[in-house]
């Protein structure tokens, strides 16, 4: 059971990191999804310039939070409180999926930025519940002494998580948002 819990923890952590990296590559697109769930009163109180900044800020916070939580969970398996944080995030996903299914069915969720064309539907709700279930299993108590990692292991896992985030960012940029970007500086000289 302990090994299963640790495997679930690693899977959910890698998913979080990849999803966060992909969202960062298409913040305007993800911000549009965020806007669906912002209270109308909050948007009305803001003028036309501030509202997009709020959407983007929330979108940036979610993406950065996912990467941070995933990377921390992967590199610090002893910290049980992180399992609860990850579970709370995953429960948030379930709530958003349910609300999206109820009120915005068929709209793009941008859960993985441009990497996925998933929409708010029953399958999406099922997937988020599955991830939350994995996060729930990962909260199973593990004796800290059994899962003590050395500094090299922790640094290696942290680097791995950041690599995944970077790869997700690059892949999402290539798939969607990279259309207008160029690798090299233009020049005829």
């Amino acid at each position, binding site marked *: 059971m302990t*090994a299963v819990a640790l495997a679930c923890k690693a899977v959910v952590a890698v998913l979080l990191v*990849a999803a966060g990296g992909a969202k960062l590559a298409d913040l305007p697109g993800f911000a549009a999804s965020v806007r669906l769930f912002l209270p109308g009163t909050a948007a009305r109180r803001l003028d036309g310039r501030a509202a997009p900044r709020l959407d983007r800020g929330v979108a940036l916070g979610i993406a950065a939070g996912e990467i941070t939580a995933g990377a921390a969970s992967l590199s610090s398996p002893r910290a049980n409180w992180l399992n609860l944080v990850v579970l709370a995030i995953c429960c948030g996903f379930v709530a958003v999926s349910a609300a999206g299914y109820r009120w915005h069915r068929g709209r793009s969720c941008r859960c993985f930025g441009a990497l996925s064309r998933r929409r708010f539907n029953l399958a999406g709700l099922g997937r988020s519940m599955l991830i939350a279930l994995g996060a729930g299993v990962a909260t199973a108590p593990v004796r800290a002494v059994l899962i003590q990692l050395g500094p090299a292991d922790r640094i290696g*896992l942290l680097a791995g998580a950041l690599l995944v985030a970077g790869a997700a960012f690059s892949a999402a940029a290539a*798939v969607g948002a990279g259309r207008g970007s160029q690798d090299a500086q233009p*020049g005829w000289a």
Partner: protein
Amino acid sequence: MITLATIFVVIAAILCLAALLALLGIGHLGLSGPDALARDGLARGQPAPAWTLEDSAGVPHSCPPSRPLQLIVFADHSLKSFPSVVTGLRALLADEDLEIVILTRGPAGHAEPVLHQLGLAGVPVLTGSPASYGRCNVRVMPFAIFVDSAGRVRASSLVNHDWQLAKLRQVAAIPVGADEVAGRRRKPAMAG
């Protein structure tokens, strides 16, 4: 002895590696797959973004063009690297119905001497903004878009060879049909 910590590190490392490989594959497909090439440029029949830009002599050039057809060549880098495209452009210079303009995001003054060397003297070079590239969905170059005098896209594609330009010119000569004006995306698969 294999500990739980070792198992966790191994599982996590395998997952990271699998995710990396999958993401690299997705990214590669996103850049070079058929879908990626098909979405570049603008669909035939779609309205082309309107603009007016001055060349280095101060002569304004506009889209939609005053001539029946306009060929916009997006080229941020020297066309010296694409001799076959230069050959194709030279062949089109004599076309009375066609206005050729080159769009670059660098200073037009750098491109003009090069074009002179390549036998394309007189082809206006316009400095476009990154936004104009984005509006035309141009990410790979040299990229050619044919626009008619009504401002409709007749053909668009990445061009690497003279025969691609010639084929695009043939497609551009065909008026846009009513179904295409309605927005159906029909692009000739030319790139490659």
